[in-house]
């Protein structure tokens, strides 16, 4: 028997059209409403597959602060740059943070200016590099949400070489939803939750959306059928005035999440107030190494303070408001003019998960739908 999942079915045109029809009929009698997703992967999939064209005009799906690279505070990139310029220190990180502009330069520019920066594809690569060059100091610059943080936590718990340190800039998603509710008042009617991050945390961490805000949430995968299915289910909840957090990505997410990963996160990290780039300082949203792991903390063990104050964004750049879902990329006067993927002004134009980058790359796609 073949148990392999047929992922092609999640892109099936016929199913997509059927879901679009169902969404149309569910929302027919509904007032205009706005749903927010909080995952850069969702924005990428929505725009790449032109899914907004399958939705009725009065159903708006807006992008929130779901791109991990975009929300990484400029202060942390400045620290990473400072570290990369120290003698005998090599900074290791994932590729998509490299070109994000910080206060004076990006990591890529720092590399051109003599900084030692290497791209890794897995934190395990960092271990290998550190083992192979014991005379060199390595710093892993960790950016991302719960998913990345869990991997780092597992690595740290299992032990790392003495010459490997961590510059942690990971963020925890649930608290930022409270900020979004404050900024959007009562104009948001539901959230599409990030698939991968929720696979770690489980659904329970979003119960406050039900208790405090009476707003439904649905987890969603990343294929067209996943996303439209989650939107359909969310619309049903909204229509019936129900406020549950539901799982529409059950092939990956267990309701209780990944207990082992949660245990690792609890053991290695504390949650402290943390800056989301340009957005705000959000309570309990920054992963910080626990005191017992202070010996691995680059901030405590190495001189990473840059000799200049941070500057979050260019005065004309609206990335922070794009990430809050307050404006669209095209509302920014730099978009597609001064700001392009080749010469980004703000973080959202850098990462393939950044709203501006996605819209720049795929906005011309048109799909005729029945």
């Amino acid at each position: 028997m073949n148990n392999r999942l047929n992922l092609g079915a999640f892109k099936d045109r016929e199913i997509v059209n059927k879901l679009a029809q169902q969404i149309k009929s569910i929302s027919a009698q509904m007032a205009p409403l706005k749903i927010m997703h909080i995952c850069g992967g969702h924005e990428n999939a929505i725009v790449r597959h032109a899914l907004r064209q399958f939705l009725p005009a009065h159903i708006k799906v807006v992008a929130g602060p779901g791109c991990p690279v975009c929300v990484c505070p400029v202060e942390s990139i400045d620290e990473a740059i400072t570290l990369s310029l120290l003698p005998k220190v090599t900074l290791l990180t994932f590729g998509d943070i490299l070109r994000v502009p910080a206060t004076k330069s990006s990591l890529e520019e720092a590399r051109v200016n003599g900084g030692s920066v290497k791209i890794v594809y897995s934190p395990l690569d960092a271990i290998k590099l550190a083992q192979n060059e014991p005379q060199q100091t390595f710093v892993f610059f960790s950016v991302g949400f719960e998913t990345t943080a869990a991997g780092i936590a597992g690595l740290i718990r299992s032990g790392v070489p003495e010459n490997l340190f961590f510059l942690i800039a990971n963020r925890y998603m649930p608290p930022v939803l409270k900020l979004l509710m404050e900024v959007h008042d009562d104009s948001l009617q539901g959230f599409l939750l990030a698939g991968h991050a929720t696979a770690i945390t489980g659904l329970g961490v979003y119960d406050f959306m039900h208790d405090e805000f009476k707003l439904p949430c649905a987890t969603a995968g990343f294929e067209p059928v996943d996303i439209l299915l989650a939107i359909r289910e969310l619309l049903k909840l909204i229509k019936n005035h129900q406020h549950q957090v539901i799982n529409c990505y059950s092939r990956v997410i267990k309701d209780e999440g990944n207990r082992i990963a949660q245990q690792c996160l609890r053991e290695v990290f504390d949650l402290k107030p943390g800056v989301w780039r340009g957005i705000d300082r959000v309570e309990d949203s920054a992963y910080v190494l626990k005191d017992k792991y202070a010996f691995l903390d680059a901030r405590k063990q190495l001189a990473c303070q840059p000799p200049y104050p941070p500057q979050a964004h260019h005065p004309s750049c609206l990335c922070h408001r794009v990430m809050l879902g307050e404006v669209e990329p095209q509302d920014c006067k730099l978009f597609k003019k001064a700001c392009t993927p080749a010469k980004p002004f703000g973080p959202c134009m850098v990462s393939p998960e950044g709203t501006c980058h996605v819209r720049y790359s795929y906005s011309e796609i048109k799909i005729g739908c029945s």
Partner: protein
Amino acid sequence: MQEISYQARNNVGHIKFPIHNGAMDLSHCRQLLQTIELAKADDSSKVIVLWGGPDFFSNGIDLNAVHLQYNASILAYKNLKALNKIVHAVLTADTKLVISALRGSASAGGVMLAIAADLRYARKNIVLNPSYANLGLCGSEYWSVLLPAIIGYGFTQKLLYEASPISADEGLRLGLLHQLIPGEPDAFADNITAKAEYLASTNINARLAAKSVLNQRLLAQMETQVRLELEKMKDCCNHPEFETARTRFVEKRRGQQQPLFLNAAPGYIRQINKGDDNE
């Protein structure tokens, strides 16, 4: 911070909020809202007196606290909404008559808080500054319902666009205030307390019935108008004008204070703008 306090005596609930400089941050707003809700729920009082503080009645949101934040726009917006809730609580106090007793001056949202009350008494020497524009904001706290209803569309235009402070006498002439009470602070307090106790004990039901009829139209507009106000306020909070005005206000840079409309003489304004350009 001095305590925001509530005390009920002789059918009158007294709310005092002597906040430093009259500038209310988020926690002040939350505390004052709780206190007003407590007073509204207190069956022993029929009249509520909002005393503000001895030096300032209220000056609206705390721009110093806002300015220090990572994202001042978001905190300003949160602060405005918190103040909105207070004004809303006053406007919807349908089982109490509310009196504002202005011992000191008021500005911006503080003026709206004062005029949300049913009766408004002030000391003679106070100043009202109901303008937001000088700080790069268009205003919230239900001004777009309250001001036109109280002083009319024309005077609202003048007040909002010129954004000049007005004296207590002018406030009385416009109808923002109902009476100016001369004398020392103690005499003012005694006078207001006597008025409040009289109202609370004399045909209060009839007065409250009249209030509910009078306010009906105003209350019906509130939801739509406040949404509009907040929409525009959000844009203002994110506009560089707000940042510049706020920085000038908070840092009190010498020679960089924004010229007021009152001083709008051609030479003076040009001189100031030239000074700005030279920096």
